[in-house]
C-alpha cells in the first residue's frame, strides 16, 4: 500500500537475521534506544517492557500480539495484518528471542476472522522458509506462532483481559500488580504488544534505532500509523510522524472545517477546533491512532450518546464505577437530549466521571468518561436550554 512507504520498503527477514546475531541485551538495548513506545494506546516504552520480561525467571514465557483492535475508529492493525503480516510475525519472533520465549500467540479479534486464512498462509510460508519453528535460520532458537480467535469483546484488547480470554475465562481485566511481564498467560511472564508496535520493532532491528528516531519528538519518536474516519475527504490509513499537530493532520486528510476531532477513539479525547494547534504525541494528545473527524453539522450530544452506548455495552461489568457509572453517564446524555437535566445534576455527573477515571479497575472505565468530560467542557453551552423537558403537571 503506497500510503505506508516505510513499511513497504522493509524486507521481512533482514531484521530477524540481524536480531538472531545479537546478544539479547544488545537487542533490547536497540529497541530501548529507538524510544519506541507502545502503539496500542498506553504508550509504554517497549524496550522497558521487554526488559522486564527478559529478567523474569520462568520455565516458559510468551509473546502475545494484540490484534483485538476494537477501539472505535481504529483499523490500522487490520491493514498492517493484511499488507505486512510478515513484519508483524517477524516482530513477534524478535520479541521471543529478546525475552526468551518459544511461543507466540496472535490474538485476532473475531470480527477479523476473514483474515485468518491469509495469516495462516503467511505463517506456513515462514515455517517453510525456516523463519519460524525449530532452529530458525539454522540457529539455536525455536519459536512458533499460533492464532487465537477472539469472540466479540472490546475489553479483550486490554492486555490482562486478553490473557484471561486466552486462558478460557471471561475477558475481565485482572488486578495489577502483578503485571503480565511477570505473571501473564498461565502465570508465566508474557509480553503483550500491539500489532503496529511489533511491526516497528522488526523495522528498527533492520534499519537501526537512529533511523526510527529521525522523526517524531524527543519523547515520542518515530512514525505513527493513523486510522482516519468521519467527516473528511480522504478517510483511510496514514503515516505521520508523532508530534504532528491536529491542524496539519486535518489538512492532509481533507478535514479542514471540522468542529472537533476525537483523538484516540471513544476512550480518547474530544479536541475542539480551538485546540487544533495541539500536538499528537504521548506528551500532549496521546493516541492509539484513531482520528474521527466531526464536521460542523454534527451534534456532539449524538456523538457522546453513541460513545456511551458503546461503553455501556462493552464494559466487562466487574467493577462498580464502570458497570454502573457508564450507565449513569448515558442516562445523563439522554436526559440532556430530552431537556431534563439540571445543571446541578450535570455537575454531579462530571464529578462521577472523575471518580470513574480514578477508581475504575482498568483502562476502559478510567478512560470512558474522557469523552463525556471533554464534550461537557467544550460544548456545554450548546446543550443547556436547548430543549424543554419540563412538564408542568
Amino acid at each position, binding site marked *: 500500500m503506497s500510503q505506508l512507504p516505510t513499511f513497504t520498503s522493509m524486507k521481512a527477514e533482514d531484521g530477524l537475521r540481524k536480531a538472531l546475531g545479537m546478544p539479547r541485551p544488545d537487542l533490547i538495548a536497540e529497541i530501548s534506544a529507538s524510544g519506541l513506545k507502545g502503539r496500542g494506546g498506553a504508550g509504554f516504552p517497549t524496550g522497558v517492557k521487554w526488559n522486564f520480561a527478559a529478567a523474569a525467571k520462568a520455565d516458559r514465557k510468551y509473546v502475545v500480539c494484540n490484534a483485538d*483492535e*476494537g*477501539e*472505535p*475508529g*481504529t*483499523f490500522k*492493525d*487490520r491493514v498492517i495484518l493484511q499488507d505486512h503480516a510478515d513484519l508483524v510475525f517477524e516482530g513477534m519472533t524478535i520479541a521471543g528471542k529478546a525475552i526468551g520465549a518459544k511461543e507466540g500467540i496472535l490474538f485476532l*479479534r*473475531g*470480527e*477479523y*476472522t*476473514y483474515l485468518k486464512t491469509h495469516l495462516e498462509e503467511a505463517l506456513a510460508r515462514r515455517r517453510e522458509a525456516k523463519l519460524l519453528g525449530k532452529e530458525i535460520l539454522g540457529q539455536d532458537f525455536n519459536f512458533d506462532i499460533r492464532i*487465537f*480467535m*477472539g*469472540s*466479540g*469483546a*472490546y475489553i479483550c484488547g486490554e492486555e490482562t483481559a486478553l490473557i484471561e*480470554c*486466552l*486462558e*478460557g*475465562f*471471561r*475477558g*475481565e481485566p485482572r488486578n495489577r500488580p502483578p503485571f503480565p511481564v511477570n505473571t501473564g498467560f*498461565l502465570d508465566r511472564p508474557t509480553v503483550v504488544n500491539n500489532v503496529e508496535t511489533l511491526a516497528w520493532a522488526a523495522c528498527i532491528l533492520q534499519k537501526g534505532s537512529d533511523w526510527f528516531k529521525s522523526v517524531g519528538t524527543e519523547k515520542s519518536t518515530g512514525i505513527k500509523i493513523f*486510522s*482516519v*474516519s*468521519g*467527516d473528511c475527504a480522504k*478517510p*483511510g*490509513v496514514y503515516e505521520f510522524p508523532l508530534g504532528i499537530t491536529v491542524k496539519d493532520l486535518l489538512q492532509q486528510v481533507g478535514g479542514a472545517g471540522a468542529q472537533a476531532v*476525537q483523538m484516540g477513539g*471513544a476512550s480518547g479525547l474530544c479536541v475542539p477546533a480551538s485546540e487544533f494547534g495541539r500536538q499528537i504525541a504521548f506528551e500532549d494528545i496521546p493516541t492509539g491512532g484513531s482520528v*474521527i473527524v466531526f464536521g460542523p453539522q*454534527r451534534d456532539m450530544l449524538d*456523538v457522546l450518546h*453513541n*460513545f456511551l*452506548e*458503546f461503553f455501556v*455495552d*462493552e464494559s*466487562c461489568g466487574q467493577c462498580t464505577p464502570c458497570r454502573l457509572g457508564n450507565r449513569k453517564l448515558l442516562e445523563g446524555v439522554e436526559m440532556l437530549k430530552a431537556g431534563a437535566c439540571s445543571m446541578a445534576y450535570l455537575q454531579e455527573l462530571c464529578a462521577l466521571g472523575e471518580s470513574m477515571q480514578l477508581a475504575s479497575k482498568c483502562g476502559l472505565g478510567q478512560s470512558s468518561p474522557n469523552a463525556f468530560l471533554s464534550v461537557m467542557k467544550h460544548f456545554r453551552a450548546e446543550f443547556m436550554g436547548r430543549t424543554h423537558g419540563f412538564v408542568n403537571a
Partner: protein
Amino acid sequence: MLMTERDRVAGEIKNLADRLGHNRTALMPILQEVKAKYHRVDSYAMQVIADELGIHPVEVYSTSSFYAFLGDRPQGKFVIRLCRTISCDMEGKNRVARQLENDLGIAFGETTRDGKFTLEWANCMGMCDQGPAMLVNDKVFTKVTPERVHAILEDCRKVFGQHATERKEVHLA
C-alpha cells in the same frame, strides 16, 4: 435433541478436547467450533464441554455469555452484524438497519422463523473509513447502502439453498 445427535455432539467435543487440551485454555476454541457448526451451544453441549475440561457447566455458560459472538441462544445460518459505532453511524447506518429489518421482517436481536437469518448490532469492526460496515458470518461488507441490503440478502438465500448446513462453504459475492 435426539439421542444419536447427542452422542455425535459429545463425540465431536471429545475429539476437540483431545486435540486442544483437556483444560480451560481449550474452552474458547471449542465454543467457537461448536457454535460455528451448530449455530448454537446448547445446554447438553455445555455440560459435555465442562466435563471434558474439568470445569463446571455454569462456568462454560458464564464464559460464553460474556462474548458477543457466543452465548447459548440459537442463531440463524447467516448472522448479520451491522456496525452501530460512531463512524458508521455518521455514514448512515440507521437507514441500513431499517432496511434490514424491513427485508427480513425481524428486529435486531431476532432470528427469522426459518432459521436462516439472525440480525444483530455490532460495535466497531475496523472498517470505519468505509462505513456503514456489516458482517455476514465471517465476511465483511463495506459502504452498505439500503439498496445493497436486498442484494446481499438474496445472495445469502441462494447460497443457503445449495449448502444448507455447512457454513464453511459459504462464499458470497
